[in-house]
């Protein structure tokens, strides 16, 4: 309880600092204060486009997250089974890790148009995180336990559940938490560049064009909130594995 109160106090302190700074700057275009942001958020929430954007962006990002995760885990399993496949994938994984998201976004815009840009970018950002963590987890599996499973001819699904999964869960927990945050960051960035209609990224872009800093902050708060809720749901599920 003390911990929660401490955290709440810290948040309130930063909101106050923000409000005081906004009052000092006294220019809504340069810095909208928290009250202006709440006003903008209330205004946005009354428009049907806001909810459509929230649902559309969240869905696209979550689909990208799921695709990237599934692909990362599946390819990590294959790479673990065959070292040659791991070597084959290394350059692609290194490229996905180091090439800026913006470069991919522009390339994907040329290839596919803006429609599903955030989904693809999310998958591309999430894939190396899940792939590398899963591979590390699999590589750390106790060889003696695998030998035991071989000797007893343990059924594959039981080997997965009793030997591999306990080893992988800590890696999954770290990877999923990192990946969900990265998904929203990269997905929204992709939408800002690609501007598919009825998305949060498009809303952010329009706020910039019309110098509506209050709306810009409001959209940002919405993104932070959605990412926070998704992370909590994910943590809840992971804690039960």
């Amino acid at each position: 309880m003390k911990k929660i109160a401490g955290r709440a106090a810290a948040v309130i302190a930063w909101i106050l600092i923000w409000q005081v700074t906004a009052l000092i700057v006294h220019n809504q275009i340069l810095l909208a204060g928290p009250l202006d942001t709440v006003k903008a958020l209330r205004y946005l929430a009354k428009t049907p486009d806001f909810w459509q954007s929230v649902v559309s962006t969240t869905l696209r990002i979550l689909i990208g997250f799921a695709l990237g995760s599934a692909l990362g885990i599946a390819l990590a399993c294959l790479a673990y089974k065959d070292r040659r496949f791991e070597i084959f994938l290394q350059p692609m994984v290194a490229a996905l890790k180091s090439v800026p998201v913006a470069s991919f976004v522009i390339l994907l815009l040329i290839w596919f148009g803006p429609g599903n840009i955030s989904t693809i970018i999310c998958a591309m950002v999430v894939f190396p995180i899940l792939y590398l963590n899963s591979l590390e987890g699999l590589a750390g599996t106790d060889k003696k336990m695998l030998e035991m499973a071989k000797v007893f001819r343990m059924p594959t699904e039981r080997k997965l559940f009793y030997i591999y999964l306990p080893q992988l869960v800590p890696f999954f927990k770290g990877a999923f938490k990192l990946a969900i945050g990265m998904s929203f960051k990269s997905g929204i960035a992709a939408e800002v560049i690609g501007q598919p209609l009825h998305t949060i990224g498009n809303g952010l872009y329009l706020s910039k064009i019309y110098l509506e800093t209050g709306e810009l902050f409001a959209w940002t708060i919405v993104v932070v909130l959605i990412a926070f809720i998704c992370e909590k749901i994910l943590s809840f599920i992971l804690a039960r594995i």
Partner: protein
Amino acid sequence: MTIEIKDVCKSYDGKAVLSCVNLNIEDEHTYVITGPSGCGKTTLLRLILGLESPDSGTVRLLGDYKYPYINSGTVFQEDRLCDDFDAVTNVCMVSRKVYRETVTEELLRLLPGSELHKPVKELSGGQRRRVAIVRACAIPSDILIMDEPFTGLDDESRKKAIGYIREKQGSGPLVITTHDTRDLEFGRIIKL
């Protein structure tokens, strides 16, 4: 079923561990392999299990055997249990052919009932060893292979475990490695 071990040699990093070992393992017989640490007891068991290959010589399954590797109920030198699961689950997980009720009854013969549903990481070394013994004996197998199965067991538990293993041996062979051959005189003692 017969396992023929013929002129088997094995070395690690140039150091000979087994030199020209010959042995036939036959049904209904018990083989107690003994010798000082490092003499190759575990290596011999690993060769029988097909987990390693000899440098020279052969380990062959004679007769009409349908699998490339022997179907063995095995106790490893280490317990090799899944720490976060209880004793019953640890035994059940290795085979679809065993049931929780039967396994519980088997475990109760060597362990107190209060210990069966705790994660095995909370059990003592001797208790974990007994879980490993039951796991080896509870699943249907053609041979029992046990590497130092009585480590950490007091005299009474050891006697109980020996009685249990003998009962479960059935018509297949039993191969045990140990430093201490007490109460195992019913088997053929092989000194490496």
